[in-house]
């Protein structure tokens, strides 16, 4: 059986969205065209994938079993496409460099400047990423390498820690803690923290609400469901809640957003800022960047991307 191109992706998107209308919007298709494609797929397969209801669709048991395989196929296809795209970029001398929130050129420009000087033929393009999701390799999908606090290892990625950096509390200026010049972990464990989106990798997400020190989730998380740094900042502006960030980020944010304060956390375990890349893409430009970054991490560990 050969599937029509796109049909598996359509089905997976409908299953994830639970609604043809929403899925059509996400796929940038007209709703009737998507309904028709799904009906065609069902007729090719010879069984029903979806139950249609007034308010959306649910999977049949066969649809659930089929979804597992279809999802794996869609992700294998997009991985192949992303690998080819990475190779094509490498051939053009371009690296797609992912970052979260603060552009790496702002929070620590030295290494990237040095790399560009040493490799004038390589062009680094910056791509902003959302917070890491469950499978690190698919989160990285469309970039060649990214810098962030170490996400969980999965077989498809490598992680090279560049430096350790203290965590710092970020709070709105009207928060009771905002006047403090320094805090200890014990003093903030019972605060309300900004809640991240459920799709964010749970261990990575909980690091910023200090769950590693508390041993469990905070008593209270806001319902913000922030999926990227901007949404965290937006939430902080209107909530009576805090979060923690790496010190290099905290150094920049209050300059831009005067409503927020950054307060050092004396005894929190540091964040591990790392380069993360794809294990099996063999991109020569990324290897050059990694070598350069590792070679230029100072003994004090504070000089790197």
């Amino acid at each position: 059986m050969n599937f029509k191109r796109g049909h598996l992706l359509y089905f997976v998107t409908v299953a994830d969205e639970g609604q043809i209308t929403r899925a059509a919007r996400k796929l940038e298709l007209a709703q009737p065209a998507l309904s028709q494609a799904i009906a065609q797929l069902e007729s090719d397969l010879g069984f029903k994938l979806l139950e249609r209801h007034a308010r959306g669709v649910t999977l049949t048991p066969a649809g659930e079993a089929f979804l597992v395989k279809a999802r794996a196929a869609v992700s294998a296809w997009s991985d192949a496409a992303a690998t080819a795209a990475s190779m094509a970029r490498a051939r053009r001398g371009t690296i797609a460099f992912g970052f979260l929130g603060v552009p790496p050129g702002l929070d620590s420009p030295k290494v990237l400047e040095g790399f560009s000087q040493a490799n004038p033929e390589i062009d680094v393009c910056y791509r902003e990423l959302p917070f890491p999701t469950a499978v690190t390799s698919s989160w990285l999908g469309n970039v060649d390498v990214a810098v962030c606090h170490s996400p969980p290892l999965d077989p498809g990625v490598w992680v090279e820690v560049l430096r350790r950096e203290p965590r710092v509390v970020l709070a709105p200026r009207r928060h009771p803690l905002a006047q403090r010049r320094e805090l200890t972990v014990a003093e903030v464990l019972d605060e309300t923290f900004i809640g991240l989106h459920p799709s964010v990798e749970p261990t990575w997400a909980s690091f910023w609400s200090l769950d590693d020190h508390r041993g469990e989730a905070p008593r209270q998380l806001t319902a913000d469901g922030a999926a990227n740094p901007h949404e965290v900042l937006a939430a902080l502006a209107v909530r009576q809640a805090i979060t923690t960030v790496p010190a290099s980020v905290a150094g920049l944010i209050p300059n831009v957003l005067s409503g927020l304060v950054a307060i050092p956390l004396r005894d929190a375990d540091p964040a591990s800022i790392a380069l993360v890349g794809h294990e099996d893409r063999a991109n020569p430009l990324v290897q050059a960047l990694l070598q350069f970054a590792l070679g230029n991490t100072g003994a004090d560990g504070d000089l790197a991307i």
Partner: protein
Amino acid sequence: MFSQVQLHYFVTVSEEGQITRAARRLHLAQPALSQAIAHLESELGIDLFVRHPRGVTLTRAGEAFLVKARAALAAEAETAQMGLSLRRAASAAIVVGFVGPPPMVSTPALFATFAERNPDAQISFRDLPFPRGATTTWLADVDVAVCQLPMSEQGVSVQPVRVEPRAVVAHRGHALAEHPEVDVADVLEETFVSYHPEVQPTWAGFHSLDDHRGGPPRRVTSDNALTSLQMLGIMSSPRAITTVPYADAKLARQVLPNIVAIPLRDAAPAAVSLVWREGAGNPLLEDLVQAATRLASGGDELDEL
């Protein structure tokens, strides 16, 4: 994005190392295949092959892309197989694979019970080659197989149907043929029939008593058996012996008058089992497994032939 056909062409050329040979295997004209590969390369924006006078070799980018292309094709094939299993599940059909004697002969009570309980089921049987590669792949085209246990694997379930002694199968002219029964120690040093190198080593080794010897036999023939039918042909030659479940040995003897089946007194028993991939939820498969569970606990399947 690239198509399934393009990926299939690319993988075939990389396996053959020559456009001409690959074109023959794909039943294509050589210029058409060259053009398709060139088209894929320009679409991806990378060179996949280096062309030499005597063939082609993969570039580094081609090597990395090959891994992903294979994974994408395999994931799509698995999705298609799951689609076919689910279609059978939805239409009261089941495909039963077997290695060795047909299930209606080797395990008649099981299939008689099953047919009685499911008079409308469309049951079909498929002769499988000996297990090669991953068990899930080997099982790809059937819902369940009846066989001596293949390699255990995640996603594969097993239910023994009958546990029975092993027997030596030898030519009438073989030195062992006069013995009414033999011990493992009597036969370990014999020359055994060899299996195709791709057959799962533990599965093949079970038939040459590797589990008792702790390694392969000192002498094997160069037969490279891959199917039960080939095995029947090889059994009738006087050069070598093999061991199979006792009931299978007796059946082979009915077909081949020039062989003998000699009970192996102290060999670990064989477990003829149902083996299936999890996930399709075929109600007929569930019923078959239940029937096998009842038979295995009752122990009345071992018929005298």
